[in-house]
């Protein structure tokens, strides 16, 4: 049992924090907020040079073989800078799904390019009617003479506009009809019949809705051999929630630091706000919740490769708890900044909005406490 950072991990944290401080300042964030792409290709190139894109990819495919803990270290620093590059979409979700489900040939074709920054991915899974239920997929994949024909609608696809290849989930229909299995299909962003409507995502970056109107893809677009992909999807989303949790911790820490500074400087009734006990106690509560969130994000990361039940409960517990902490820390940061906190003139609002987006992504606290409870009862009765 040892939860101290290794030397390598400490170096990674230092370099990520240095990058954010030096290259990702408020001006850069403001520029990105109004940018049609929502991220900077130059920054993506730097990520590649720093080895961050290769970080979790297996060494056989040009990666560094890092774990969820290292991703968390990186994501926490990204949170501090409100980084909007498509890291979760391409690396945490996309590359992980290829690694888990893809054939050797598919991995060889895709992962080295992801690692060197020349290929970006996205994962199109959520559908309006499914809400946050990962098992509910209505999009279909029908067997054709040439391969597969995909049809359906996807929503809230993270950074789909930036992707070269989109991993689309669909219910496999073979010669006998619906199979009950979910397949993952690699669809080029330029495929005929695929239409992407992207929008500025709450809190920075972009997302999109996707329509698939009889999109034809070849045989080998199906990742792996057509086994039900649901367990892999659940694993990848649990992993993404751990990474996003770490990002939320970075965001919360920045909000706490900023708010603390403000309450020391801002004077009312002839003394700093922080001279009031009610303000000091609020900040103490915020500090405590940041610390609890940090513990939960680390816990979820350390359990990403645990048996599915353990992993899923850790991920849902972290998502629910961090979401609750995030709302509190975010809302109180605005409250303690007073009127200025509600304006676009300070960055508090931008950080807060990213936390609201975090809480919503893949289901909010209520959803994940309920999932945690359901999985707990499975373990009791099993």
């Amino acid at each position, binding site marked *: *049992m*040892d*939860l*101290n*950072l*290794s030397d390598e*991990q400490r170096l990674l944290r230092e370099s990520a924090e240095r990058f954010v401080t030096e290259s990702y300042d408020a001006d850069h964030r403001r520029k990105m907020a109004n940018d049609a792409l929502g991220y900077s290709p130059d920054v993506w190139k730097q990520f590649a040079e720093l080895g961050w894109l290769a970080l979790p990819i297996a060494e056989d495919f040009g990666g560094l073989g890092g774990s969820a*803990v290292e991703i968390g270290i990186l994501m926490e620093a990204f949170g501090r800078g409100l980084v909007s590059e498509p890291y979760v979409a391409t690396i945490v979700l996309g590359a992980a799904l290829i690694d888990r489900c893809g054939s050797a040939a598919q991995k060889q074709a895709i992962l080295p390019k992801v690692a060197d920054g020349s290929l970006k991915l996205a994962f199109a899974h959520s559908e309006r009617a499914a809400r946050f239920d990962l098992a509910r997929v209505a999009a279909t994949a029908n067997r054709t003479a040439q391969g597969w024909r995909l049809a359906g609608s996807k929503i809230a696809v993270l950074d789909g506009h930036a992707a070269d290849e989109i991993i689309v989930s669909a219910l496999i229909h073979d010669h006998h009809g619906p199979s009950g299995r979910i397949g993952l299909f690699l669809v080029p962003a330029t495929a005929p019949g695929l239409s992407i409507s992207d929008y500025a995502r709450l809190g920075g970056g972009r997302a999109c809705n996707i329509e698939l109107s009889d999109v034809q893809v070849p045989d080998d677009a199906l990742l792996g051999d057509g086994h039900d992909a649901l367990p892999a999807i659940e694993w990848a989303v649990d992993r993404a929630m751990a990474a996003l949790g770490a990002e939320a911790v970075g965001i919360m820490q920045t909000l706490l630091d900023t708010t*603390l500074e403000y*309450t*020391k400087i801002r004077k009312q009734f002839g003394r700093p706000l*922080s001279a009031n*006990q009610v303000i*000091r*106690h609020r*900040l*103490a*509560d915020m*500090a*405590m919740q940041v*610390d*609890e*969130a940090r*513990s*939960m994000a*680390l*816990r979820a990361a*350390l*359990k990403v490769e645990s048996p599915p039940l353990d992993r899923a409960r*850790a991920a849902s*517990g*972290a998502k*629910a*708890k961090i979401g609750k902490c995030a709302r509190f820390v975010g809302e109180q940061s605005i409250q303690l900044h007073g009127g200025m906190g509600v304006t676009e003139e300070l960055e508090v609002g931008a950080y807060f909005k990213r936390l609201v987006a975090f809480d919503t992504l893949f289901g909010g606290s*209520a959803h994940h*406490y*309920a999932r*945690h*409870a*359901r999985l*707990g*009862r499975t373990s*009791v009765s099993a």
Partner: protein
Amino acid sequence: MDLTFNAEERAFQSEVRGFIARNLTEEMKRATALTPSVFSDPDIGMAWQRALHRQGWGAPGWPVEYGGPDWTPAQRWIFETESARAGVPNVNVMGVKMVGPVIIGFGSPEQKNFYLPRILSGEDYWCQGYSEPGSGSDLSSLKTRAVRDGDDYIINGTKIWTTHAHHANRMFALVRTSDGERQQDGISFILIDMTTPGITTRPILTIGGDHEVNQVFFDDVRVPVANRVGDEDKGWTYGKYLLEFERGSGIASAKLREGLKAIAELAESDLTGRAIDSPDIASRISEVEVDIDALEMTELRVLSALQTGQNPGAVSSILKLRNSEIRQAVTRLGVDVIGHDALAVEPMRPLYKLNHEPATPEDMLTVVPEYLNGRAYTIFGGTSEIQRDIIAKMMLGI
């Protein structure tokens, strides 16, 4: 980074399990489960202390030269966790965890030689004389006074909330020996024999129906000056040192988990009409479980820092605050889970020696008293409000 234990640590875990299996009797286990107050009754707690002492484990936190077992932080974690899982009795923490470290840190050689072995063996039973009717959170305003008379102090005043004063043969107390410029000055740390003439103890019943705390009165109580720990008028420093031990023993999550498990089992039982089938109850159980997970991770992070000699700092206040709040959440949930049975509160004590059939099933007997008594968790050892002051000052610098 690694959340699992290595081979050596797992071997130690088996050793602890073996020790508990050999020494924890069914009677002790049942008595502990049926104790709704914070501390075990002395006959139960001290029997366990004696067993620990025979094994050389009587004082896990003490240095080796005073009889500590020289455990790593990870071993202490394993010991506390296995103890909580098995449901062992509480020992006299006022001795082992509070006055012991102060005597080790600041006591004279004679005091160390006399008192420490008696704490280890369970021969002495200690109580803590800190709070007074007029001095709660503002502890250093205390007024119980010790006036020098030759080789003795003559003590007059009163202490309150004194846990197990009615069982204890010794008390450590903060008393005023002079009036300094600041109210923290002029306080001394004194060890008092509870059989000294002039000491009277008045019981105070808590809202859960338990007699755990008392008020203690001192009328011209004569205590040798040799019973003072450290320097005269410097007792506040020693007293604060002790409070850090009281707040941050640092390993509380395992006990909380056992408490929640008992509530979850009730919720899954027909006795409560399967309360867990209510989605609200199920989600709330998960919410508390996740809070315990977070506390456990924080404890493990602190332990990891301690292993490499880092100082965890004000985090002991965070641990105390979260432990007390989560404990209250567990007991609150318990009351909601047992439903109708929350109306029938058994007044007889101890609950493990009832001479009549209680109105509720035995597994529910402690639920309401624990909730009621548990309101004290956010009050004793420094209220939550004081802990938030400490966090703001020490962690945030405001």
